[in-house]
Every structure is written in structure tokens, then in C-alpha cells.
């Protein structure tokens, strides 16, 4: 087991999410940055659906109650085992009673802790991703224990060091496709949406990233229709909302842009106050 000695700002267990249940109104959920989860699981040799711990801005402090292997990816904030620094993106063996802690954040917004075989929290609708009203817990609290897999550390293991490009954390450009209602914008607005710099609002979470700047418009609401993570909605008041992994399954605001899958990963590493700019991908 792993014990949360001190919870971070927002810690939850996440995996691929609940694809296939949106017809019941269930959000997809899953890691905000799928790329970093995949990287961590690949380094450990885990299955693709192995669940990881996601933390946000401020990492938790943890204690291991059995020997296992871990890998940390995503947000950089000097990880330490028993106060000794360890590298992100590497295979690290931890012993029973070892304590994992972190320094202050240097880069990125969301960090991932993967363990050998994945975290074993309850699986509901084929996923362990935390979500209020679906899993018992919405987030991890100080004093919680999470079960680990019993998989022994393999004799042969990868010593690959995979680097995450800096652009993954620092890229201002967010690559998008035209959204379903893009053509409802006039030519000036179609141009302006790609030339304006937007600021990530403090009102940003796993459901949606809001942008500070108002985008004046006269678009009418649409008849409620499906939405996905990465959909950029524009409200009549000019609020731009980029839907993220925990978003609702349907919405009634015009969908003017759609982020690429990689752009969702990268946006989830941007923090409130940082600048983003949309860039149109050629189809």
C-alpha cells in the first residue's frame, strides 16, 4: 500500500477514463495529460490501462508500505526518496517505508506517479478514474491508503530514460481544428480567434479551462448536442471555455474549436496566468 502522509492541492487516481459510458451522461475522465501517463507506464512496462496518481501544482507526500518500482512524469518539482533527489521519467525502485516527497514546482501543472502494475483502487465502469457520484472518492486526502499491485519487480527491466520535450510544458501554441460551429463566426472573428493571446483563468479545473479575455460575439446558443474533452465553447457573454477530461457529455454553447489530443495534454500543463494562443491545424 501507499499512504498519503500529506495530500497535495488536488490528488486523484486516473487512468484511460470511461470511454463507452457517455450515453448514460458519464464523463470520460482519465488523466488530464494522457501523454505523461503513457510515458510513465511505458517506462515501468505497465499495461496501458494501469492507473496512476495525478497531482496538481503542489504534490503530495507519500509513504510506501511495500517494495515496488515507480516512475514520475509530468510536472517537474524535484522528487525525492527519503530526501535524496530522483529524476523524473526514470525507473526507480522504492523500498518498504521509503518516503516520496517533492520540492517546489518548476515546470508544468500536473504530475504523475505511476507504480508497478498500477494503483488498485476500485474499478467502476471499467475505470479507476475518480469522479464524484461514480467513485467513492473524488480526491485523495491525508491519511488515505491506496492498494498496490502484487507484481514483483522484474529481474530484467528497462533503463530507458525518455525525455519529455520542454515544449510539452512551455508551448504557448495550442493546436486546434475548426469546431462544428466555427463557420457561425464572421470572417473577422475567425481571424481574431487565432491572433489573440488568451490568459488561462484561475477558474480552471479538470472540467474546463476558462480563458480570461472576453471574445465579443453574437452567436446564438445551439440545440444541446454532444461535446468532448478539447471542445472550445463560446458563451453569449464572450467567455471561452476549453472543456477538459471531466467535462459533461452534452452542451448548448457553440463549439468553435476542437483541440487536438496532444493539445489537450499540453494545455493541462499550463497554469493560471499563463498565455495560450490557438493555432489552426491543417486537415
Amino acid at each position, binding site marked *: 500500500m501507499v499512504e498519503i502522509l500529506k495530500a497535495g492541492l488536488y490528488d486523484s487516481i486516473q487512468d484511460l477514463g470511461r470511454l463507452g459510458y457517455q450515453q448514460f451522461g458519464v464523463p470520460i475522465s482519465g488523466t488530464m495529460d494522457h501523454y505523461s501517463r503513457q510515458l510513465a507506464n511505458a517506462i515501468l512496462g505497465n499495461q496501458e490501462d494501469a492507473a496512476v496518481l495525478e497531482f496538481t501544482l503542489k504534490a503530495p507526500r507519500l509513504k510506501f508500505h511495500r517494495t515496488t518500482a515507480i516512475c514520475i512524469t509530468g510536472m517537474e518539482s524535484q522528487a525525492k526518496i527519503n530526501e535524496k533527489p530522483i529524476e523524473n521519467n526514470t525507473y526507480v525502485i522504492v523500498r518498504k517505508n521509503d518516503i516520496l516527497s517533492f520540492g517546489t514546482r518548476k515546470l508544468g501543472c500536473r504530475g504523475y506517479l505511476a507504480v508497478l502494475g498500477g494503483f488498485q483502487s476500485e474499478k467502476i465502469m471499467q475505470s479507476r478514474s475518480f469522479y464524484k457520484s461514480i467513485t467513492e472518492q473524488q480526491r485523495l486526502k491525508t491519511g488515505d491508503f491506496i492498494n498496490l499491485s502484487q507484481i514483483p519487480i522484474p529481474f530484467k527491466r528497462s533503463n530507458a530514460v525518455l525525455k519529455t520535450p520542454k515544449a510539452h510544458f512551455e508551448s504557448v501554441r495550442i493546436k486546434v481544428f475548426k469546431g462544428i460551429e466555427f463557420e457561425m463566426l464572421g470572417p473577422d472573428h475567425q481571424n481574431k480567434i487565432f491572433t489573440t493571446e488568451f490568459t488561462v483563468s484561475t477558474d480552471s479545473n479538470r472540467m474546463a479551462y476558462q480563458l480570461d479575455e472576453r471574445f465579443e460575439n453574437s452567436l446564438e446558443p445551439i440545440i444541446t*448536442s454532444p461535446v468532448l474533452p478539447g471542445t472550445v465553447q463560446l458563451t453569449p457573454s464572450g467567455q471561452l471555455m476549453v472543456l477538459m477530461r471531466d467535462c459533461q457529455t452534452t452542451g448548448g454553447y457553440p463549439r468553435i474549436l476542437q483541440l487536438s489530443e496532444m493539445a489537450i495534454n499540453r494545455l493541462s500543463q499550463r497554469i493560471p496566468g499563463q498565455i495560450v494562443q490557438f493555432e489552426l491545424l491543417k486537415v
Partner: protein
Amino acid sequence: MNKFKLTYSRYSETSILVEWPQYIAPEILNDVLLFKNYLLKENSESIIQITNAYCSILITYGFNSVDIDAQIASLKSKYDSRQDLEIRAQKLWKIPACYDLCFGLDLEELSKAKKLSIPEIVRIHSEAIYTVYFIGFLPGFLYLGGLDQRLFMPRKKSPRPYIERGAVGIGGEQTGVYPIESPGGWNIIGNSPIAFFNPKAEQPCFARTGDCIRFVPVDLETHQEISSHVKNRTYKMESEVIDG
């Protein structure tokens, strides 16, 4: 069966949105469901998810390199050449609802605004048969069509921060039940003791898109009785199959 002129658009790297003419009507829902069921029945391995709303369906394909243009062409030819399937037998679900003032926080305001007595509101709301257009907004939240226009009432100007699980509400031209506690701006007229969403059940919602529901007024005592049956998992939902 008349067919409609559909629009097919790339939605994301792995999904396609198919849109019907943009209005809310039973004949549109019927055609949406026919096409959705046709695609589901085909059981194509590349499709991992199909969701519908009032007049659109979103089809999501597996992660690895989907040729969206080819899939759109294939969807078009399927819609144009498909044989109509029978829609799955629809069910009419009877949903107990208590319209007592202790639940119906906005009944008095609605009564004043609509110049209808509270018993009249209850009668109108519970006589209608509602169609489940789709499930969205919250897990287990049914989008219902068929509200009597005498009960149309705009959403509240400032939403309540907390609405009880089971609250029956009216928002504009729609009515529905909050499956879980949530903030919300609908006018609350009653409460249903039924569980609309059970994440651990194989079928997390009893109702499916295309089914119908009807509210059956119950008194406070019956509401409490049903509540405890629901808690103990001894409550049996009542439904009947509707003739097509």
C-alpha cells in the same frame, strides 16, 4: 420512413458528428435512434462509442489513426442505403414523484406566475407522457421532451448552489429529475425517491434513449416508504412495453 438531409463533420481526430435538421421533434429523434441502432447493431470494431442528443449523434472511433474522410463516406452510404430496423421495444416507466410543498420549493411561485392552482400543476405535469431524448448534463440526467406548454417557466435568474438528489424541476420548456445532488437553476416542483443512476449496475440507468416516462404523484408517506425500499434495493420499478 422519410429520410433527412444529414450533415457529416469531423469533430476531432477520432470522432464524427452527424447532424439532422436542427429542431426538436419526435420524428427527428426516431430517425436519430434508427440510425444509431443500425450502427450499434453492425457492431463495427472500430467504433467505440456512439452518443446522441436531440438531433445529432457523435461517433467515436478507436485511438489509432482513423481515416475520417473514409469513415464519413461509409456513414453516408449506410444512412442512404440502410434498411430500417425496428426500434427496440420502448418502455413506459412509472416514476413516483411527491409534489409536497416540502419538496416543491418553487410550486407557489410557479402557481402565481402561471395562474394555475398547485393541484392543477401537479395534474398537468403527471398526466403527460415524456420521451427520453438522451441522457446528459449529469450521470443519469434524462432530457425529457413533452412538457405541457402551460408549465413552461424560465430557469431561475440565480441558480441554487444545492439541489437535492431526486428533485423534479422545470427549466424553460424542459422537465427532468436531478439524479444526484448538484447546483442548478431549474424550478423545483417535487421529488422522486427513485435512483436514476447506479454506477455499479450493469445498466447504470434504467431508462434508455427513446423510452417514455410518466410521473405518478405519491404522498409524503409513500415517498418515504419507496425511499427506504430503494435504499435496501427492494424497490421494483414499474414499466410497461409500449406498442410501436
